[in-house]
């Protein structure tokens, strides 16, 4: 989770949505993901989707990976990760705008998934990054970026 938080901090420094995502199998990090909405112009390119693509591109699969996320995944990403049969889904702070692990929608209940979901791992740091982003107080972000930021 420390690594995921570092990724989120780096995203914030670039004026991007501060969400970190890392897939780990055993003790081995196999991929990281970052929000890629602006470059792709595709609003579904959340960090989790980016991470899944990187894993697949490397010829691997997300199966049996622990998915570490700084923020509760949205319903889209939660559904994707559960359907890909990750081993566990672990996240930091809740996402009361889109959260798919109970905050807005309970995707696991909808899908009848038994995959363990572990919440509130270092939630304060993840939340502080989000608050900074949505308050637009990130001193490193150029003004134009702050204005055109897209919500996760």
């Amino acid at each position, binding site marked *: 989770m420390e690594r995921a938080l570092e990724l989120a901090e780096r995203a914030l420094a670039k004026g991007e949505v501060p969400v970190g995502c890392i897939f780990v199998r055993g003790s081995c990090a196999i991929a990281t993901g970052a929000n890629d909405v602006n470059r792709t112009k595709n609003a579904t390119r959340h960090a989790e989707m980016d991470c899944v*693509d990187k894993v697949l591109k490397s010829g691997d699969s997300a199966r049996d990976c622990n998915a570490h996320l700084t923020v509760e995944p949205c319903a889209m990403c939660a559904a994707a990760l559960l359907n890909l049969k990750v081993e566990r889904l672990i996240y930091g702070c809740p996402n009361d705008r889109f959260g798919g692990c109970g905050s807005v929608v309970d995707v696991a209940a909808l899908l009848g998934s038994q995959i363990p979901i572990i919440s509130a791992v270092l939630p304060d740091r993840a939340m502080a990054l989000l608050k900074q982003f949505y308050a637009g107080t990130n001193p490193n972000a150029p003004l134009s970026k702050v204005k055109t930021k897209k919500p996760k």
Partner: protein
Amino acid sequence: MKKHISSSNLEAVLEDILLVDSLPSVEVYAATVTHKKRLSEVILRLNTVMPVPDLQHLKRINGLRILLCKACSFRTGEDAIADLAARGFDVTSLGSVEKVSVVDRLPTTRRQFEAAKNLWPVNFHEDKLVEKALSYRAGFCEEEVGGFEKWMEMALEAARRSTGYKMGCAIVDPKSGKVISVAGDRRGQHPLQHSPMVAMDLVAKSQGGSGAWETDQDYYLTGNDSPDAYLCTGYDAYLTHEPCVMCSMAFVHSRIKRVFYGVGSPDGALGTLTKLHTTPALNHHYEVYRGLLSDECLKL
């Protein structure tokens, strides 16, 4: 006169409460007013002495009967009258008290209103869009449905040449009448490349974005990057099958305007497992219609 016979049984997928014929009820105490001439005076006084904030959807008066309070507030009607007297209300203006069943909330549809007002007079503000959605063929005329079917044909064609499941999606700009992207299911190559996800990625490319995926048989409109084009704002999506949770939420992020699908799916999130598009907490809501060319979609 020759008429186009539509094979579609189009219906709107609406939030559950709109589909309820009669609303849940709650019991109240009502008393007769002995002097008709004093009616308005009694209402005024009662509103001050015993206000009913959670029964604001009801009229206080029904003929010569006046609504006192929820039945759960007092053990008996006599207790309610005694309480009124203790508050300085002139109870000689009231006659017998009885328990009456009334609806527990404001009706959201005309049908609910008609049923509710038989119990007790109730307020109602008709929502024209809701009434249209509830009516035959979701209120669309034959000609409109014919137009929708034309777009669905493109989704069907994409489904037939799909390399994954036989499912397809077409995204259309109803304003310009142009198809923006068409995609089939590609689950064989990539587990997340459901046809709607691919079609949304192609919309991104049509607007000059890099998109995320390379695809072959699917296509998109080039040069769609006018300044007003932003994600799927204002666009309609035509799907042979009800989308899953992932794809349904992706349509929220992409700000689609309407989703039309042919047939339901066991893992569908727009009518089967849930009605994701009616989740109040989400920041964008789209309309959903089903049953468009359902026979053709079933045959895939």
